[in-house]
């Protein structure tokens, strides 16, 4: 009888743990969204931020976040997918492959602040660029690369062996098989992984503090010349992203409406990350349906 009571108690504890975790999530999300929605308005999203006065928006920070994300992905996706192809198709078991695997593991486990420091050393000081979007994007590439490599490798490995063997049996070379058979079949899961990684990059701040900086120059959105100082497209300008903005107004800010600005920004950030997640699932399931015969 005693062991049955213990069993009941233990079950109760496990259910309680599950309830605690769900309520943590519900609490966090409702707090962020309820407090944030009050402050999100078209005006908040389209006015530039202010350093001293109340009523600043997040226009530039929002643009910077997406722009840095775009540049990061332009660098990281080809590198990561290439690395994934190498690991899945070319790497032979042995010392070199083990080394590469350890390198990926090390990169994946580095704290983002350490990557930020590396970025500060190499992309800011050694190159002499100062705080730039490009420096930030390169730091984020280091941060993001292991994720994309792992996703691509796993997706390519899960392509059925028959497909690859059939293609090779038709006399098609290895690289051509990778291009025309393996990559298209692995495409849905690679894309899903990349979008999820993009969500992570979007919310990252510690790696950007010392690489993309804490300020944004006055931007002129009519200026599309990427080499102009005021152009939003210039990749050699400092850029404060949304996540960094939340941190800086809370720890170093002088504005009186810190709470309002950070509530609004936090909600925008969380909603964006949420959208990335939903988009990843949605696109993943749709492409899988299109490419395979499953309903």
């Amino acid at each position, binding site marked *: 009888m005693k062991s049955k009571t213990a*069993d009941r108690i*233990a*079950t109760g*504890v*496990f*259910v309680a*743990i*599950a309830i605690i*975790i769900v309520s*943590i999530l519900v609490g*966090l*999300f409702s*707090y*962020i969204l309820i407090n944030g929605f009050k402050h999100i308005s078209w005006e908040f999203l389209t006015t530039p931020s202010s350093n001293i006065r109340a009523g600043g928006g997040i226009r530039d920070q929002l643009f910077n976040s997406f722009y840095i994300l775009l540049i990061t992905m332009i660098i990281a996706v080809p590198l990561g997918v*290439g*690395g994934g192809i*190498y690991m899945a198709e070319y790497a032979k078991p042995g010392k070199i492959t083990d080394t*590469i695997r*350890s*390198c*990926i593991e*090390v*990169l994946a*486990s*580095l*704290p*983002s*602040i*350490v990557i930020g*420091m*590396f970025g500060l*050393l*190499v992309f800011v*000081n050694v190159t002499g660029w100062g705080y730039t979007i490009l420096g930030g994007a390169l730091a984020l590439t280091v941060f993001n*690369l292991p994720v994309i*490599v792992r996703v691509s490798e796993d997706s390519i490995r899960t392509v059925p062996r028959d497909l690859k063997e059939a293609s090779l049996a038709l006399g098609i*070379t*290895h*690289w*051509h098989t990778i291009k*025309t058979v393996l990559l*298209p079949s692995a*495409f849905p899961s690679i894309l899903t992984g990349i979008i999820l990684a993009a969500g*992570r990059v*979007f*919310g990252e701040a*510690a790696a950007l*503090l*010392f690489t993309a900086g*804490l300020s944004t120059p006055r931007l002129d959105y009519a200026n599309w010349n990427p080499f102009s100082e005021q152009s939003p497209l210039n990749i050699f300008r400092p850029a404060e992203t949304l*996540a960094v903005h939340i*941190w800086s107004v809370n720890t170093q800010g002088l504005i009186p409406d810190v709470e309002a600005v950070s509530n609004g920004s*936090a909600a925008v*950030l*969380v909603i964006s990350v949420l959208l*990335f*997640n939903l988009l990843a699932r949605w696109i993943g399931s*749709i*492409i899988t349906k*299109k490419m395979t015969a499953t309903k």
Partner: protein
Amino acid sequence: MQICIYPIMTYFRGVWCIMEKIIPAKERLIKSSKNRMDGELRGKILVILCAVIMISATISITIFLGTKGLQSFIKNGVSLIEFLTSTHWNPTNQANPEYGALPFIFGSFAVTFLAALIAAPLGIGAAIFMTEIAPSWGRKILQPVVELLVGIPSVVYGFIGLTVLVPFVRAHVGGLGFSLLSGMIVLSVMILPTITSIATDAMGSLPKYLREGSYALGATRWQTIRKVLIPAALPGLLTAVVLGMARAFGEALAVQMVIGNVRNLPSSILDASATLTTIITLNMGHTTYGSVENNTLWSMGLILLVMSFAFILLIRYLSSRRKL
């Protein structure tokens, strides 16, 4: 959606088509083996290049941070023993600057272990709930919950800690609110999803006959979990906790916003404190590059790097035990 996806796919194919020039069939047949071999080589070189870039990134991070981090000991003559064991941090004192980083090293370890102490039971409990208690609906609810928790950016955790947790601790527990306790709670929520998802994998990969054998002997579910499943999955569960701790150790901004950032050794859990990461974030921006104080910050970064290597070795050790 059809409109959306297909152009992307055809775009990718289109790019490849442009790269392979379109030539008449006869010539293509004659040249084909050579062309194919060229493409083969080009492709191989391309992906090997990607792999090389990855290795060189890792090696250059280690070398750059290593040399920069050692400079304060080699060039500036800061004593390594003092750096690691002294509790006096006063780099701005002109006459007698002191570089004892022990309070921050201690803070990092304290907050990491305390966070793991909370998050490990919760995470492993959630994993057991998902795999043993309610494998069908429990998993359907908790899996997305865990994924959403991973997705919340760390600054948002820090901000909520700052606006909700810190005033709460100040009002109901005591102290200033900025404390080890707040840091520990924020971190434990942050590492909870890491621990949960890896522990779930560890529990889920246990062979079915373990459970069935135990139930067949008349054991209750709790006895099965406690005596059979947890010991069998132990290396995997420990890996989950270590990975969570590695994340907690390196987390910077969220902790920095709630821990108070003082340079003294905390005497209780309600005292404000500081960690290696928080001191780096706070001071890196406004110390002169190349100064002694700045160099000691790089030494702290080196400690973070070394610790992340140590965590990897620990995980390697644990997973080698799992294979046995």
